[in-house]
């Protein structure tokens, strides 16, 4: 009984890791950039939802949509302002990476300046009593988080696999120069990818803030790091990999806390990462990168 509950706890955390990991994975897949500012997009989304919901007093669905819109704008804006020029001038990859870290620090400090560094209580959006499933008390947010994540994952898989823009994304990720020659607008495809990843992060941020109702300007950094680990574990660049990595991380974390030791939870998670990378360097579902000579 308690074991099942721990697994469900793990699935909930894992779902959020997975949603955030997707952003890392898609962006990495398409421009080989680890977008360290992605974690902070979550923070932006949470503050966006907070402003609309509490300060403006608008209904929940408006807050969710506003949060998504804000994150998409932020994601695309960051791409255009910070990365696009570097990419188009073939700057070394390390410059992009450092820029990403800079953007991350910028966002954290900007929000600290606007909202202060103290945590702000986040209102619960969904006032639904815990649901009783065969003797297990499961909170509504938990179920919502898992269901929404799985649905989004399926939708994303269809988008990438079946639509024209999905095909363009895959083409750019395969070979950006060749895609350009085939008439694909790589810049807008990359911007779309950033926007899509950020939109998913916004959904993650709303779910996260409901599960852990306190928002701070630094909430994205640890979450982002964990999600990044999930992305690497599952296979960087792979969409099902992000989901698998997120779920594995969440469940392992939860079970370690529940049955071994709370202090060891992070150690076990990162230990698993090291073992997986030793055995399969590209991650569980990662593509084997072949260097073209």
């Amino acid at each position, binding site marked *: 009984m308690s074991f099942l509950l721990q697994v469900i706890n793990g699935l909930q955390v894992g779902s959020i890791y997975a949603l955030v990991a997707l952003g890392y994975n898609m962006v990495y897949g398409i421009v080989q950039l680890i977008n360290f500012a992605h974690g902070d997009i979550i923070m932006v989304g949470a503050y966006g939802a907070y402003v609309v919901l509490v300060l403006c007093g608008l209904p929940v669905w408006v807050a969710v949509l506003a949060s998504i819109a804000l994150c998409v704008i932020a994601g695309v804006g960051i791409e255009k302002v910070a990365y696009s020029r570097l990419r188009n001038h073939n700057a070394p990859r390390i410059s992009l990476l450092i820029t990403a870290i800079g953007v991350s620090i910028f966002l954290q400090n900007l929000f600290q300046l606007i909202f202060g*560094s103290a945590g702000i209580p986040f209102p*619960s959006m969904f006032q639904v009593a815990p649901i009783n499933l065969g003797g297990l008390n499961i909170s509504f947010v938990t179920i919502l988080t898992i269901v929404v994540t799985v649905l989004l994952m399926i939708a994303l898989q269809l988008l990438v696999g079946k639509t024209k823009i999905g095909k363009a994304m895959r083409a750019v990720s395969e070979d950006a120069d060749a895609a350009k020659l085939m008439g694909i607008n790589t810049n807008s495809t990359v911007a779309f990818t950033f926007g899509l990843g950020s939109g998913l992060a916004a959904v993650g941020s709303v779910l996260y803030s409901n599960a852990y109702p306190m928002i701070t300007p630094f909430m994205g950094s640890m979450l982002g790091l964990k999600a990044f680990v999930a992305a690497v574990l599952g296979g960087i660049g792979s969409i099902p990999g992000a989901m698998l990595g997120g779920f594995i991380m969440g469940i392992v974390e939860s079970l370690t806390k529940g049955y071994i030791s709370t202090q060891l939870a992070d150690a076990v998670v990162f230990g698993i990462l090291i073992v997986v990378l030793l055995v399969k360097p590209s991650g569980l579902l990662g593509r084997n990168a072949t260097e073209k000579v």
Partner: protein
Amino acid sequence: MKLRILSLVMVCMLAVMAFAGCAQTPAGDTTPAPADDATQAPADDATQAPADDATQAPSGETIKIGGLAPLTGEVSVYGIATNNGIQMAVEEINANGGINGKQIDYIYYDEKGDSVEAVNAYNKLVQNDQVIALVGDVTSVPTLAVAQIAAEDGIPMITATGTSADITAVGENIFRACFTDPFQGEIMASYAFNKLDAKTAAILYNVADDYSVGLTESFEETAAELGLEIVAKESYTGGDVDFRSQLTKISAANPDVLFIPVYYEDAALIVAQKAEIGITATMLGADGWDGVLGSVDAANTDALEGAYFCNHYSPESEDEDLQAFIAKYKETYDADPNAFAALGYDAMYMLAEAITNAGSEDAQAIVDAMAALEFDGITGHIVFDENRNPIKPAAINTITGGEYKFVETYEK
């Protein structure tokens, strides 16, 4: 041509470096002008710090007293309140003629709740500003770091709110105005057993925080003495936001009381998740819970219903000085004072009285006067024991209907 470009680049770089140097000055507050610096230090939301407090001081002799508090960051609620209380005391003392005819020049820095920042700020207070005594720090971890150097320097130091048992143990010159972590753990275990009729207890604590660990240890010891059974003891580390795994385990053990000796922001997250898991145990907290209502969304205050926590004072006491303090604090800062403000206020008065009694600014004389001090403050009658900890009772508070309620003062 190439040479010219190179020299131009060099000049640019030098200019940039010069600017970088300038930019650091206000941020790292290294300017020796303490008065302006100090009043600018708190973020604008922090306080309406009386900007004229330093200018009031006559140009003649002043007594420089240093202060350290986290005015920004995670524990800023405590730091701001404590500092406000200290400033109120300084103003009153100065208005009443100061110490032995000298005005107090209170110089304080924001240490952001960080040990490294606190030690740097301490060094600046002692070396640049040449303070003769220190009121601070606020939370236990940085206070301990500062106390270790202050003990070497022999600077008289009183922390208003550093509750960790180790703080005063590091030197004869370190005092505190609040009671200690072990004391709070003992009080809560004894209160749960004797007054709440608890037979079983669970603990959820932050293993990365001395404060939380100290309370947990003393709670366990007292529980063992009394026969209160600890059925679950779960921990987490700093920065964690997910407590569901631990709470699920605690829920399975079904304790009568759940002791959560952590600071208010963590406590707010824990109680929200506790409500989801469906734990019905009575929650117990300590002085770190003061302010928890402000960190919980209005919709979640139900989760705090019926919780008990001990504190240094109760605003509902009938003490006249205390009521005057509360009224004045509200008027000055447009906020309700909490225990931290009251302790900061008392700490400054205690130090001032000790300096008055000592009749000199010699560090050893002040320390001796402190040790012998008998003081009636707004947080109760205080004398120091041989370990320089105050001897005083704890006030037990509860939360009902989204408000703090005073229950009783309790001595083990």
